[in-house]
């Protein structure tokens, strides 16, 4: 089939007097691993629940596989959800939890057993198949929730903050597992997160939300390298923001010029700490003083104070072949590769 797998058309949600999601359009392609990224309260869960059919939208349409499903509840949609907090059935074993959906669907009991075993293998839970959820670790519960949803072979798997409840180490392991799972079954995943690192690591497409609106979407590299707004720049990764002025679709900074279509006025030049160099030959150069130098393990974090008082953070690899550093208090010249600079509204 051509066309997107999921299409949201001017979808919005208003709770009494709060508009959680403003009318927005979104298309998700087959095989996508899409992250809905944004700070807490920006409407991610609301949007996900409208896709899953748990919340009727105030306006707009939801289409899945070309079919209008706006009026259908979750039980009638070809989507499955992994809930924040998992929502496992506490009175059923792991195997019974996984077998619940197929049983409701009236699949053949022998087929159900096979499906359950296949899922247990997929998420490495064979050893705990007969345990109750309460007797599982957080990571295991997470995997049961995944298996329980995936056994339904959903067209779209929805995940609400799937890793938020796990500790850091487990979270990294589960990120790898989720990626492997997505690859293994070749499905379409949409997940909600407020963790930009997680979104960048897992997703092939990121949709960034702010206060109920989509403010940017693209590949992780797009949103990281070419933030469309000050909000995106500061929310995704670390960013240096240098005040400048736009005149005649150009921004003059550090002796160079950046092409920047738009009306004249104040702007911010955004550059990532790892893109700033100490290369004096760079066409854009800024003079400053090294104020601090911290060893961060894989990289060094330099703080440079410019003449106007602006501080610029620079990340440099701390490997053996890294160039020797100037001392604290020394004058340094920072190089800003034009391709790494974005211009956003202040």
């Amino acid at each position: 089939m051509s066309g997107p797998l999921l299409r949201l058309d001017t979808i919005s949600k208003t709770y009494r007097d709060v508009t959680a999601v403003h009318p927005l359009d979104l298309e998700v392609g087959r095989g996508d691993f899409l992250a809905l990224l944004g700070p807490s309260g920006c409407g991610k869960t609301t949007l996900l629940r409208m896709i899953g059919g748990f919340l009727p939208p105030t306006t707009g349409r939801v289409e899945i596989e070309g079919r209008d499903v706006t009026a259908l509840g979750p039980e009638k949609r070809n989507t499955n959800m992994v809930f924040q907090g998992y929502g496992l059935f506490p009175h059923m074993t792991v195997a019974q939890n996984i077998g619940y959906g197929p049983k409701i669907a009236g699949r053949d009991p022998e087929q159900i057993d096979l499906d359950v075993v296949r899922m247990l293998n997929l998420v490495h839970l064979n050893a705990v198949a007969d345990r109750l959820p309460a007797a599982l670790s957080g990571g295991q519960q997470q995997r049961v929730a995944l298996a329980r949803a995936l056994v339904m072979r959903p067209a779209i798997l929805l995940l609400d903050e799937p890793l938020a409840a796990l500790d850091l180490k487990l979270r990294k392991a589960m990120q790898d597992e989720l990626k492997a799972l997505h690859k293994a079954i070749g499905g379409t995943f949409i997940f909600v997160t407020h963790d930009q690192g997680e979104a960048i690591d897992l997703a092939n497409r990121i949709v960034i939300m702010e206060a109920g609106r989509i403010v940017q979407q693209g590949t992780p590299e797009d949103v990281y390298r070419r933030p469309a707004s000050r909000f995106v720049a500061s929310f995704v990764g670390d960013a240096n923001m240098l005040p400048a002025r736009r005149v005649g679709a150009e921004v003059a900074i550090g002796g160079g010029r950046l092409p920047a279509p738009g009306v004249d006025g104040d702007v911010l030049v955004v550059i990532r700490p790892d893109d700033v160099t100490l290369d004096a030959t760079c066409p854009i150069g800024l003079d400053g003083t090294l104020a601090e130098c911290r060893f961060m393990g894989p990289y060094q974090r330099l703080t440079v104070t410019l003449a106007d008082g602006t501080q610029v953070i620079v990340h440099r690899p701390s490997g053996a072949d890294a160039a020797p550093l100037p001392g604290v208090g020394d004058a340094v010249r920072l190089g800003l590769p034009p391709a790494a600079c974005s211009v956003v509204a202040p």
Partner: protein
Amino acid sequence: MPGRGNLLWTGFGVLALVFLLSPLALVVFFSFAENQNATFPAGGATLHWYGVLFDDPDFWKALGNSAIVTLTVGLVSMVVGTAAAMTLARTRPALANALIGVITLPIMLPPLVLALALATGYSSLGLPLGLGTVIPSHVVFTQPFVILVVHAQMASFNMAVVDSARDLGAGPWTIFRTVILPIIRPTLIGATLMAMAVSLDDFIITYFTIGGGMTLPTMIWGMLRKALDPSINALGALVLVATVGTSLIALRLTRYRG
């Protein structure tokens, strides 16, 4: 001296307990005593009074009625109470609290007032008094127990479990049967037993609404008015065991949080 203070409180507590429990203990004690008048000296131990009781056809009649009332009231309170609690759980909190206030009114009212109101109601409707009027009367004051206990559990219920079941294709009834019911079952059984215990030993409401028939408590009342017959103690002891037994099981079950 905390030691002495503690001792004092312990002593006071024991005294209070003895005071509260001694009448009950006496009932049980005299149900096994030979003395005709249920006074000291009690004489030897005997099962004679239980024999007298079991030979009384009124006892079997009252027992049968009590069984019918208690079981029906338990069943109806369970179903009605659960349905009400599920509806309340889906109502917005302000309205739900107001409704709970109305529903629990019968247990706040003095039983005598409630009994009078019910009896007047039945007679004005021209309903003949009997078990058919006793049962709904009991339900009026037993269902609040079920509603309150089940509603309290639903308030802390993990709704993601219900969402999950829906997501996996289950309809409302299937969700209730396969997910909600198994999770709240211990609470539900406990609340039902509590309702049954309350129904089993109710006297006032039964007395006003039963007309000519008898349940165990109204039979005790009737026996008290006649000659003091120690088999009344045997009957009292039996009702005591049944009520306390169901209440204890109910408490155990409702405290269990699976």
